[in-house]
């Protein structure tokens, strides 16, 4: 959409202060970008510098030994993916449903919509450790799931929901009104309108939300230690306890003497995993958009 603007705009000679403002804005925007990129590279550089030495194929495919100081992270990687899978499987339908409901069936002023929206904002601000304790009490004990990948994934889903819902809702609200009018004039059902027209158009917002949600879920420590647990054995079902990568990183860096090097390596794997998941999410959403647009 910005193509009209990315071409350099000629400064208006008549307005020197305007040109000055333009230059100041240019400097500010590029400066910010440079600052963000700089700090990011600093952090990433530190991760790579300290962690890349420990990385190897064997590190990814063997089990940890000596509390993680030696050995690899294979079971932890599997647990992490399983937790993420549970989290996504629970988040995506609920988030879609709620977002569609908020954007299409409630007005800004409506009471029910307001209640849901405010609840979500509150949910977004619940500290992760409280989620952990809640998840422990509710999923592990009340529902009897125990320390398990299932409990962990569901707890993470509770955390990721507000992010995904709100940004999906924004995406849906940004879909031009003309589509809805056109669809109504053709007597399309709301179901068709929603699945064929609105959701594809809302994909950017949805992807942004998912990327944030996945990021938050993958990075989560406090909520997982009380729900999916600390066991670093290869899980054999979703009802097994499994240690997530972020917990492994935390444990190695804060609790295990001499674990720093592998902590960096595991953090690097985590970042790589995130990159992968984001890439897959982006590709899937692009594919989805294309498939729906094609005959």
């Amino acid at each position, binding site marked *: 959409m910005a193509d*009209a*603007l*990315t071409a350099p*705009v000629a*400064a208006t000679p008549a307005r020197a202060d*305007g040109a000055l*403002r333009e230059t100041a*804005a*240019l400097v*500010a*925007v590029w400066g*910010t*970008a440079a600052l*963000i990129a700089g700090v990011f590279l*600093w952090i990433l550089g530190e991760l790579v510098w300290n962690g890349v030495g420990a990385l190897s194929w064997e590190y990814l495919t063997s089990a940890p030994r000596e509390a993680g100081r030696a050995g690899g992270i294979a079971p932890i990687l599997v647990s992490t993916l399983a937790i993420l899978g549970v989290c996504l499987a629970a988040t995506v*339908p*609920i988030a879609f*449903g709620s977002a569609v409901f908020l954007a299409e069936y409630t007005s800004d*002023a409506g009471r*029910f919509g307001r*209640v849901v*929206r*405010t*609840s979500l*904002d*509150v*949910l*977004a*601000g*619940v*500290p992760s*450790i*409280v989620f952990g*304790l*809640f998840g422990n009490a*509710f999923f592990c004990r009340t529902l009897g799931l125990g320390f398990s990948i299932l409990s962990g994934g569901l707890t993470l889903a*509770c955390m990721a*929901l*507000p992010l995904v*819902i*709100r940004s999906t809702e*924004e995406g849906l609200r*940004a879909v031009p009104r003309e589509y809805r009018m056109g669809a109504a004039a053709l*007597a399309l*059902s709301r179901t068709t309108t*929603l699945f064929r027209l609105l959701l594809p158009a809302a994909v*950017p917002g949805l992807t*942004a939300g998912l990327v*944030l949600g996945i*990021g938050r879920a*993958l*990075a989560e420590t406090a909520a997982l230690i009380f729900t999916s647990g600390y066991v670093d054995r290869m899980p054999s079902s979703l009802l097994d306890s499994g240690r997530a990568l*972020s917990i492994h990183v935390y444990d190695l*860096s804060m609790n295990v003497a001499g674990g720093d090097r592998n*902590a960096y390596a595991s*953090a690097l794997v985590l*970042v790589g995993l*995130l990159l992968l998941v*984001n*890439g897959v999410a982006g590709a899937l959403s692009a594919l989805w958009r294309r498939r729906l647009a094609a005959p």
Partner: protein
Amino acid sequence: MPHPGRDRALLWTLRLFAVSSVAIVLLVVAFVSGESAPALAEVGPVRFFSDPSWHPASGFFNMVPMLAGTVLVSAGALLLAAPLGVLSAIFLQFYAPPALRSYWRNLIGLLAGIPSVVYGFWGLVSLVPLINRLHPPGQSLLAGILVLALMVLPTIALLSDAALESVPAHYLRSAAALGLSRWGTVSGVVLPAARGGILTGVALAAARAVGETMAVLMVCGNVVRMPEGLFDPVRTLTANIALEMAYAGSAHRSALFVSGLALLAIVALGAGFSEAARRKVVANG
């Protein structure tokens, strides 16, 4: 024609989903309230504000410095991150060369997914010693603000980007037709049109800032005292829970849940404010 039936089924499904997200909130609130009830009953709500200090093991429960710490760290981080995040989105949409864009978006996505432990780690090992040279002890309100700002920046940047992305192209064309400069278009047309989405991003970031635990715990110093300057250590409510929960006996544990309840109250208050602000802003547009 089966539509009405299908539509009704859809509506009920959607309503069910929406209700389930409300149910989760209610469950969380009920859980936290239930756990904090013993302390509230035994100690009474007033003493959480009037006790001489926070030493739960010795029976003192003053939370005020931690409330202040939470608010100061979060507010500082937002003040810093909001303009940077929006500028990053503007950069992405209007200034970055096309070849750079997807990289930039990935970079921000990555930034969002770096575990808070890593941010905390980096803050503790790299940032705190730098601040320590300026003014000891280094672990301080300032360190918390800087690390937290970095952590919430991607939320603001990504959601602002989505908001800018959805500004209708014809606005841009009309702005160009009026001879508006690039920045003139951005500040005069695009930002006002996208402010709803940007505000949502800031609100979510605020919630994340208030709720962040691990990184803040590692760089803030965690001393329960009213900070007198940027270089004083502070303890946030989240850090308080994380530091003490695992080691707390029953009364102490319940008191920690009261800090959880206080956090929820702060977030609810903030959510109310931001919703009102958003509605006002959107209505004025």
